[in-house]
């Protein structure tokens, strides 16, 4: 089983159509990976499906980097 970080990075790479090597922890979806606003909504939807959780809109807005996504999933998956 891959760890959360690897799974998040894989989804980010798939959703945004970038090479997985380009996806760094500090990468910003919009500034570094070229996501538009619809991409970020889709990315959150994909994370919800992968980790079988629901991310509320007000939380989703705060997830703008790969690390923030990893942190959110880590914090909410163990509960």
């Amino acid at each position, binding site marked *: 089983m891959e760890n959360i970080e690897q799974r998040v990075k894989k989804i980010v790479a798939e959703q945004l159509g970038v090479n997985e090597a380009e996806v760094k922890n500090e990468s910003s979806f919009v500034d570094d990976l070229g996501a*538009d606003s*619809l991409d970020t909504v*889709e990315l959150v*939807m994909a994370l919800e499906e992968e980790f079988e959780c629901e991310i509320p809109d007000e939380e989703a807005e705060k997830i703008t980097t790969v690390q923030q996504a990893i942190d959110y999933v880590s914090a909410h998956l163990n509960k």
Partner: protein
Amino acid sequence: MSLQGKVALVTGASRGIGAAIADHLAAEGAIVIGTATSEAGAATIGDRLAAQGGAGRVLDVGQEGAIEALVDEVEKAFGPVAILVNNAGITRDGLLMRMKDEDWDAIMDTNLKSVFKASKAVLRGMMKARWGRIINIASVVGAMGNAGQANYAAAKAGIMGFTKSMAREVGSRNITVNCVAPGFIDTDMTRALPEAQREALVQQIALGRLGEAKDIADAVGFLASDRAAYITGQTLHVNGGMLMP
């Protein structure tokens, strides 16, 4: 059979324009789920569509949570909705001076808010599929206005604005969003008009006759097909030349 195997959801499909649209899409190979407000209506739709793998469902688009629940159930049973036709609509005609708040609200809920809710509900599946067709049934009245239909015309014009905005939002995902604006079509809705009013209306139509439900279904079928892949955010007027916007 250009729509072979695609799941299509048509609201208000028990009679009139909606029934013709459901039949047309089914004939093109789509698996059509048609909705009606009554059990009897849903059963009739089911009988008509079952041969092509479709079904009828009860749906009151104005009821809180009903659209979301139906889309959820349909997607589990048939797969993601690829084609949505927002057709369900009602009239509550009356002169503005006499129009009650309830008449306004009922039209907005059933004719406009339902379009927003159904479109939102099917969007996730369409975005994942990178293919989708949303076709909203507007009205010539939304473009030209009509005395006694301020509420109806406002809702139908609202649908056109909604369509353009949504088309811009989701175009990058290969989802097209368009309206078909019927003119004066021979259905139960227009048969309710007084004979004198019907005759006066026909005078305004270049082709000199009422339209048929099939005329609208043909336009919807075109917009749903790959032949209309490069058309989005548009209102296709099917009105016999009653209005040339």
